[in-house]
């Protein structure tokens, strides 16, 4: 049995090994189908014909490498994605958070920040935003810069407003932004308690004692081995009694340390660390 399916598979593996050796970014545990698609989009964008050519240039061209990170690690998100999830957070997690004098939250893989602002709105309506800190992290510096600005295109506004209205919140989403010509600017009050910072889930370390960790639709991009490693990192970063929230297709079912958690809401993938 050959180790690689075909030449293209070999090229991808060789590229990822090279990036790790040269730049320290480790994509070797990413799901292959998705990263392969992204690499081919990048080739097209850069008008490079073959992966070995990209590999050669990535070793030598720092600017190209930064564009590679920018394009290949970008994730798509939306405000109040899965409204019933936010409703569940409000009902199952917020009451406990209210009992803490200071609340530390890690939003891992925040991408352009839509969900970090969503969470800030929920905390605001619960009266605890002022004593909360949301550490919103991502591997991709470019998306973090956009997240910090809190400026979002208005093309999905209708969807976001619909999500907001189904999330068990009061008022309107428009209470939290100013409308520009083709964009919205989020209320700077929300931003004050969000710290946007670079963090790579694969190579960076534990992130303080958190009461809540959000990491939604990030683990799906990883193989099961890497998922286990990252969930272990979350487990280590959580206080006893703290909560871990995953995306709809993600679960602790295959995590070796799943005994440390109880399932608070199976449908919405909310877990509590109890050991």
């Amino acid at each position, binding site marked *: 049995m050959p180790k690689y399916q075909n030449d293209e598979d070999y090229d991808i593996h060789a590229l990822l090994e090279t990036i790790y050796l040269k730049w320290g970014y480790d994509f070797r545990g990413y*799901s292959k189908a998705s990263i392969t698609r992204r690499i081919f989009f990048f080739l097209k964008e850069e008008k490079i014909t073959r992966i070995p050519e990209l590999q050669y240039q990535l070793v030598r061209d720092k600017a190209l490498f930064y564009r590679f990170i920018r394009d290949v690690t970008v994730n798509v998100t939306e405000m109040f994605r899965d409204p019933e999830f936010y409703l569940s957070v409000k009902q199952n997690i917020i009451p406990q958070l209210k009992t803490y004098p200071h609340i530390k939250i890690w939003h891992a893989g925040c991408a352009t920040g839509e969900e970090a602002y969503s969470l800030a709105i929920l905390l605001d309506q619960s009266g605890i935003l002022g004593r909360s800190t949301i550490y919103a992290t991502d591997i991709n510096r470019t998306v973090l810069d956009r997240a910090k600005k809190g400026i979002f295109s208005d093309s999905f506004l209708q969807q976001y407003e619909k*999500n907001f209205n189904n999330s068990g919140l009061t008022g309107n989403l428009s209470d939290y932004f100013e409308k520009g010509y083709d964009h919205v600017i989020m209320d700077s009050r929300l931003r004050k308690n969000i710290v946007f910072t670079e963090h790579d889930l694969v190579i960076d370390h534990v992130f303080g004692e958190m009461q809540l960790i959000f990491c939604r639709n990030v683990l799906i991009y990883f193989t099961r081995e890497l998922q286990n490693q990252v969930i272990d990192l979350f487990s280590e970063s959580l206080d006893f009694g703290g909560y871990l929230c995953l995306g709809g*297709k993600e679960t602790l079912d295959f995590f070796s340390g799943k005994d440390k958690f109880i399932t608070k809401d199976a449908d919405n993938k909310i877990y509590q660390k109890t050991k």
Partner: protein
Amino acid sequence: MNISTVNEDAFSRLVVIGASWGGVDALRVLLQKITVPFNFAIVVVIHQDRSKKSALSQIFTEIMPFSVLEAGDKQPLVGGEVYVSTPNYHLLVEQNGTLSHTVDRLVNYSRPSIDVLFHTAADAYGDRVVAVVLTGANKDGAEGARCVKQRGGQVFVQDPKEAEAKAMPLATIDIVDVDFIGDLDALASKLNALV
């Protein structure tokens, strides 16, 4: 790093099905005509309301003599089973015989996109792939079907005359030298004849 190898025995062929407008009814008819047991795996992408959870696998499982599962993350494909997409997630086939998901941007205004499924299936399984394009009112699946052909797989298309929405079958026939065009009865016979 652990590189998983393909379990050649888990399924014979990989049948990937794309359905959109009118797709639930078409799938129900098609799947009910599949002879049990079968040793190919079936992966279905169907366009559904992105803001709703789908009860499709549950509904289908109740009426079919085989498992119709909502595709799980990194779920291994097994012959004789059917895996259905989840609204708002792209569904991809990995080279190690598992399924994966992404929330990447819409493709053909769709998530899940049929093209994404077909494309990744073709990349992973080449000539073992059979792509089936059913009813739909858009062009999703056509590019992916072309890719399946390029990699040596086969493409079957629902007869546009029978399809509730003919745009999707027509779009595929338009750009792909398809292997077979037929109604749901005939498509089921073709699938039952796969070895």
